[in-house]
């Protein structure tokens, strides 16, 4: 936590320093005050993160027999062996032999729900776009089991490195009527959209600060969003059509971002705008 605060204050100081040089002290003081007040806003929300409710719900879903096979998810293998939850989220996405694909947390959960519980994919992801969906709850629960552990996406299979390289290419891929790519907003230091501070995913420290918070309660949505949900919405904001849930584009971007954020100690679930 101390490191995050120090980073924030460095960011704030940097912004203020630039501002002073360019536009004069009065303007800078105003800007700093705005950022300080936003920091206070976030601090006040930290105690009592509604995401904790989703963790409770997710735990219930994990241990309740469901689907045609009336099985729980307790035997689900998230990469570290059946039923091993501790640290699993911090090492996803990863290659899975049994699926023949690199999977992220969501797509691995879908795999478990279809194989262990006998659900269809549609049943497994039912309502994923709505607040409080089962999938968001399950991912939140799984992520909290990696809290305090470093992000360390798997590097045991060549297809994982390939996925990360594809993710990097997609990060810079501009398209659409506004020419946006992820890099448009997330490749520069200490930048904001309006007052929203933007992580610079090319900078490992900044990438870590952002990635350790997912899944996060988003106050603007009154809901917990997983990283996957967030990326799909970023793509929507770029004015593209909907990306498929669990698709390769989403998995590849996560693989790249998790690698950029390697070593960041997970604080999930976080709270974001």
């Amino acid at each position, binding site marked *: 936590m101390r490191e995050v605060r120090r980073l924030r204050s460095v960011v704030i100081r940097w912004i203020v320093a630039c501002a002073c040089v360019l536009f004069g002290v009065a303007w800078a003081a105003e800007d700093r005050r705005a950022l300080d007040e936003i920091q206070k806003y976030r601090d006040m929300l930290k105690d*009592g993160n*509604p995401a*904790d*409710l989703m963790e*409770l*719900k997710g735990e219930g879903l994990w241990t309740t027999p469901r689907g045609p096979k009336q099985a729980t998810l307790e035997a689900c293998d998230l990469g570290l062996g059946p039923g091993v939850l501790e640290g699993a989220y911090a090492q996803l996405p990863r290659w899975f032999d049994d699926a023949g694909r690199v999977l992220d947390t969501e797509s691995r959960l879908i795999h478990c729900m279809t194989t262990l519980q006998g659900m269809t994919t549609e049943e497994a992801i039912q309502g994923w776009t709505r*607040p*409080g969906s089962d999938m968001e709850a399950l991912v939140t629960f799984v992520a909290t089991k990696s809290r305090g552990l470093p992000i360390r996406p798997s590097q045991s299979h060549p297809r994982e490195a390939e996925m990360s390289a594809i993710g990097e290419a997609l990060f810079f891929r501009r398209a659409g009527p506004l020419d946006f790519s992820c890099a448009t907003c997330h490749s520069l230091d200490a930048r904001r959209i309006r007052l929203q501070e933007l992580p610079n995913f090319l900078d490992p420290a900044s990438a870590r600060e952002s990635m350790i918070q997912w899944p996060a*309660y988003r106050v603007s949505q*009154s809901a917990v969003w997983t990283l996957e949900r967030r990326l799909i919405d970023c793509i929507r904001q770029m004015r593209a059509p909907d990306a498929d849930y669990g698709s390769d584009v989403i998995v590849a971007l996560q693989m790249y971002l998790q690698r950029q954020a390697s070593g960041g100690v997970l604080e999930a679930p976080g709270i974001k705008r």
Partner: protein
Amino acid sequence: MGNPMKIRARAEGDVVEVKVLMAHVMETGQRKNQAGELIPAWFIQRVEATYGDRVVLSAQWGPAISANPFMSFKFKGGAKGEKVRIAWFDSKGDTRTDEVIIA
């Protein structure tokens, strides 16, 4: 019946601090869906906290309380190991009660 609340209650001296998170959409009745139709209001209207037989807080809420509400309050005379119970009642007649042991 709604999803479980998350309640924390901690005694310091003879003062107990209670923090509560409730799972509720708190729909205002003013928002529109994609089709442009109003989403009907649905929100917690009353909250009651009890310690044994004693009411330690009662509240009336409108739709302007945020979704997944959080509240905290403090009362005197609570003891570690005893229970605090929270109940909410919403505008559709749903209700939920949860309790926690004071730590």
